[in-house]
């Protein structure tokens, strides 16, 4: 429903983006997915590219993203979003194409597709939601779970010798010549959200110029999987996730 333009002499300054549907999300209270969805659709609104944008959301909590984003979308099998996005972009090179993937999808089962998609420099934007846990299946260990992190499949904490180390795939991706813009963001406070919005906007602009793959990691929370309140989860994120996954640009275009 469109909000009224002003009330009692006050004007409307912020509303839900038009390209976000009216369907309430299935996400848990405080989940970062909702914020990233909203910011992504805000950019689509502001750039006026709803008719030209096609999204891909694979298996994971965000597999239902097509319920919330009022754009054409394809659901993909677990790990295959960037391959599906490649197929779309290759046959529709003038459209804006993005994939929206979780850590299990992008950095475990789909690592091969991720690396090769970026290595080919596909002109797509990859949004990588990293909360260090498998949310949808109930809080299992992810490739990006921190050492010592307790999950349902690492109940005594992640241990490097048997479970491997948390994978900094974004740094790895940045090494590839096909990666044009690689950056890490978060949505745990207003300033961070605003920076993410800029990164998404600039990525779409690069895509229009056929510059190569734009890769945006969003370090996110999972209050339910981490067994915390939403507010605690954001505090935990700041204290534990950000030192290991520091925010900022990792690869920026040479000017």
């Amino acid at each position, binding site marked *: 429903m469109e909000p009224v333009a002003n009330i009692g002499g006050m004007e409307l300054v912020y509303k839900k983006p038009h390209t976000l549907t009216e369907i309430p999300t299935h996400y848990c209270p405080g989940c970062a997915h909702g914020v990233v969805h909203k910011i992504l659709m805000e950019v689509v609104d502001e750039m006026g590219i709803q*008719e030209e944008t096609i999204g891909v959301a694979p298996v994971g909590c965000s597999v239902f993203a097509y319920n919330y984003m009022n754009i054409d*979308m394809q659901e993909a099998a677990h790990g295959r979003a960037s391959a599906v996005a490649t197929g779309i972009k*290759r046959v529709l090179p003038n459209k804006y194409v993005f994939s929206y993937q979780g850590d299990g999808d992008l950095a475990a089962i789909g690592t091969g597709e991720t690396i090769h998609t970026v290595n080919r420099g596909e002109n797509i934007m990859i949004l990588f939601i990293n909360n260090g846990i498998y949310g949808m299946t109930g809080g299992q260990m992810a490739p990006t779970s921190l050492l010592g992190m307790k999950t349902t499949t690492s109940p005594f904490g992640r241990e490097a010798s048997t479970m491997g180390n948390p994978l900094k795939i974004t740094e790895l991706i940045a090494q590839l010549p096909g990666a044009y813009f690689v950056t890490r963001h978060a949505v745990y406070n207003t300033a961070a959200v605003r920076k993410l919005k800029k990164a998404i906007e600039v990525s779409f602009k690069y895509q229009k110029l056929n510059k190569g793959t734009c890769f945006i990691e969003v370090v996110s929370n999972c209050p339910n999987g981490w067994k915390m309140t939403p507010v605690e989860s954001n505090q935990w994120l700041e204290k534990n996730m950000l030192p290991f996954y520091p925010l900022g640009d990792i690869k920026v275009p040479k000017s």
Partner: protein
Amino acid sequence: MENEKGTSETRLMKGNEALAEASFRAGMQAYFGYPITPQSEVLEYLAAQAPNHPDVVILQAESELAAINMVHGAAGAGARAMISSSSPGISLMQECLSYMTSAQLPALIVNVQRGGPGLGTIQPSQGDYFQAVKGGGHGDYHLIVLAPASVQEMVDFVFDAFRLSEKYRNPAMILADGALGQMMEKVILPAAGSLPKMDAPWATTGKRHIRERNIITSLFIQPEQMEKLNLILQAKYSQMQKEVRWEEIRTEDAAIVLVAFGLTSRICEKTVDLAREKGLKVGLLRPITLYPFPTNAIAKLAKSAQAFLTVEMNAGQMVEDVRLAVDGKRPVDFYGRMGGMIPSPEEVLVRVESIAEKLHAVPA
């Protein structure tokens, strides 16, 4: 046969290359593949011809897994898309084929079969019959399956498979084998442009303001919705039965009917000749579509013929569908070679003769 892309022409070509050339002429817009013997010539041919077809997407992916998901994306975006591979590569694609069938995406899948199981051999086989016609991946679904028996059919079935696949919004497979892929034969290549462009109002091409958003998905979390989708699929499979195709050779008076598809049907055709020379009334039924299967045609022959012999390059797969069609009314024997071995017409004849003897031993 004039049109904007020229005329039909006759050439001597390898099966894989003829299929590749046919795909251009059938208006294929996107090909994604990965090398595997004995079908690598498809991608090689497409890559070599790519400069003449600047609008066609041709991409060597990092795996068959990635390649089939690229087909998913391209088909979902409304392109006439295809992939080719051989048995182990096709196994890798099964998950996505299940997804594509559920998401109702048309595409052409080519399996130039080799001997298995496992890494197996690069020699021809028909060991993927079950995988091709019974679904192959998880869930209730079928691919439309066409079985060529000549290089000419490697060409013609590209057109047929795209047409059927788009008509039913269901992936279609050409189930060939290593021999058909590698053999050279004279082939008539149809003129380009004969297959109309795919009409895909459901495709994700960007949500126009005049329509609702298009969603390509195989996710139906509510059981009511999932059952509804399944009913839609099953209704399509019922509809598809009318697309069944088969060929019969000298079955009118046949006491023994051979049933064979693809390469083995050519071998059995020779066996029919050899048997007839010996005065044995033998005929051949060749299923051209393996799904839908010519059940009724076989059932009809079960009224006139006395026995059936199914010949395959596997341990006995299609024979199960032949037995279902014959429904216990006549004996159905099986002869097969495995692991890349090709039966000779003479060894099939030995089996035919032993069946004939048994038939004569039974008092009329």
